């Protein structure tokens, strides 16, 4: 079975303007819309396209998070994943531990590919895929904007500072997605109905025997310093004069 494992994180929706709580112990989450991390949705879309082209047989979506992350996994099933796994926990798990947990499922499922978002838009760590690849002792192709597969090799175009880099990696491998890899499909109503019949296994984190204790401690959160609104100038001449006066041009 040629299998693709896709990791999904439940995160605050990207349209939400995130605010720090007055006590500085977190951000406001009450009544805030939660969604699948957009980069992970791109990862799932890519896996589905590979399967639809005949390049894989099964797409398995996995999430590590609270019970409510079942919603994100149901969405993944509605998009087209074949089955889903929730590793249930109410703790915030750091990337090294997420990588160890994913490795446990990689060993169980023997995927040809693991695809995940390059970062989650909550903690913006950009670590998990690389850490999984290291622990698995397999290749990593991060920040992918194009992915081509043959039987044993993936050719991946990566968005890097210099432009676009293409590398070739032997399978199995870990791929992390960048924004321009694809545009995820919309879910249609009949797909939501069908998704209800697809398997979604829920496992408690504790039952896996993986060390997940936090190593880092968030001491506090604060709002960033705000830039002050400046002045409006009336025309190009006034703008250029102002910049000249400040010695900027």
């Amino acid at each position, binding site marked *: 079975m040629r299998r693709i494992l896709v990791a999904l994180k439940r995160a605050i929706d990207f349209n939400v303007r*995130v605010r720090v709580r007055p006590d500085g112990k977190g*951000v406001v989450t009450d009544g805030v819309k939660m969604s699948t991390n957009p980069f992970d949705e791109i990862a799932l879309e890519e896996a589905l396209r590979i399967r639809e082209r005949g390049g894989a047989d099964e797409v398995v979506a996995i999430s590590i998070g609270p019970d409510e992350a079942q919603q994100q996994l149901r969405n993944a099933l509605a998009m087209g994943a074949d089955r889903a796994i929730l590793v249930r926990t109410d703790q915030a798990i*750091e*990337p*090294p531990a997420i*990588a160890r947990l994913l490795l446990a499922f990689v060993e169980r499922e023997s995927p040809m590919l693991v695809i995940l978002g390059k970062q989650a*838009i*909550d*903690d*913006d*760590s*950009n*670590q998990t895929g*690389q*850490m*999984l690849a*290291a622990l698995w*002792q397999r*290749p*990593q192709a*991060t*920040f992918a904007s194009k992915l081509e597969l043959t039987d044993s090799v993936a*050719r991946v175009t990566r*968005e*890097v*500072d*210099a*432009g*676009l*880099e293409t*590398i*070739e*990696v*032997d399978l199995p*491998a870990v791929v992390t997605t960048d*924004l*321009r890899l694809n545009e995820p499909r919309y879910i249609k109503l009949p797909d939501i109905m069908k998704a209800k019949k697809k398997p979604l296994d829920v496992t408690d984190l504790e039952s896996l025997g993986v060390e997940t204790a936090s*190593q*880092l*401690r*968030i*001491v*506090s*959160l*604060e*709002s*960033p310093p705000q*830039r002050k*609104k*400046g*002045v409006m*100038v*009336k*025309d*190009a*001449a006034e*703008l250029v004069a*102002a910049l000249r006066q400040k010695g*900027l*041009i």
Partner: protein
Amino acid sequence: MNRVLLVAEHLDGKLNASVAKCVSCAASIPDAEIAIAVLAADGSAVAAEAARISGVARVLHVRNPANEPALAAVLAPQLANLADGYSHVFGSSTTFGKDLMPRVAALLGAPQISDVMAVESATRFKRPVYAGNAIATVEAPAGRQLVATVRVASYQAAPAGDPAPVETPVVDATLPTHTRFVSVSGARSDRPDLQTAARVVSGGRALGSKENFAVIQRLADRLGAAIGASRAAVDAGFAPNELQVGQTGKIIAPELYLAIGISGAIQHLTGIKDARTIVAINKDAEAPIFEVADYGLVGDLFTLIPEIEKQL
């Protein structure tokens, strides 16, 4: 004593400008002794350049043809080996560092703090989360190795100084062959580099086409500025991906930033909030970019840019 090992990014025999900024970050760790690791095919010039950064105690120069072009899977085991005895292992938050450092951290069994923007102590750092909508203060465990990437826009480059000794340690690591470089494409130009330029002119969706984007290039040339673009402009194909400024593109801190036809999505603002002076030109007076701009000008960019050029 805190011993900091910094990974040097380099290309075509030149040290990346981010390295001297990482040195400034590392130097703000109390009682820090800084070493720079240069892993290259040859790398003699890069090692010499790294050795001249003020505050650097030594350069560890590892020569191996497999080290270029740089691949994280090849560099990581060598760095994990070199990191023995170092309390901190730092890289820059460039795509090179973002790709490489977590792989090193996993091999070391160390936690990583991404995008360090301020050092509070040897174990306490500040970093942006939620696209910069919050700043987290994070405490790492004492007495353990820590890996971090440095948000280079938060630091000034360390100046040049007296050359530090260059050592050539022997690295005992098995290098994988499962990852192979194929090619890299990107416009090489004589323009200043986007990430380190003093002036940047960026264009957004309002440019309307790849052809129209030439007006941004022309203005940038007049100002001796680097060119940037919003995500919308890159997605629409007006500009290549490497010019994207913002949360998932480049985070920059120029002296002067001109945002032209850019509405100012929060993800874009994250990438420019350290700019000294922001100028916004947009025909929509309500565009959020005006909330952060030092100078705002409402109007049609195709009329205003030629007028600006005439004034220069």
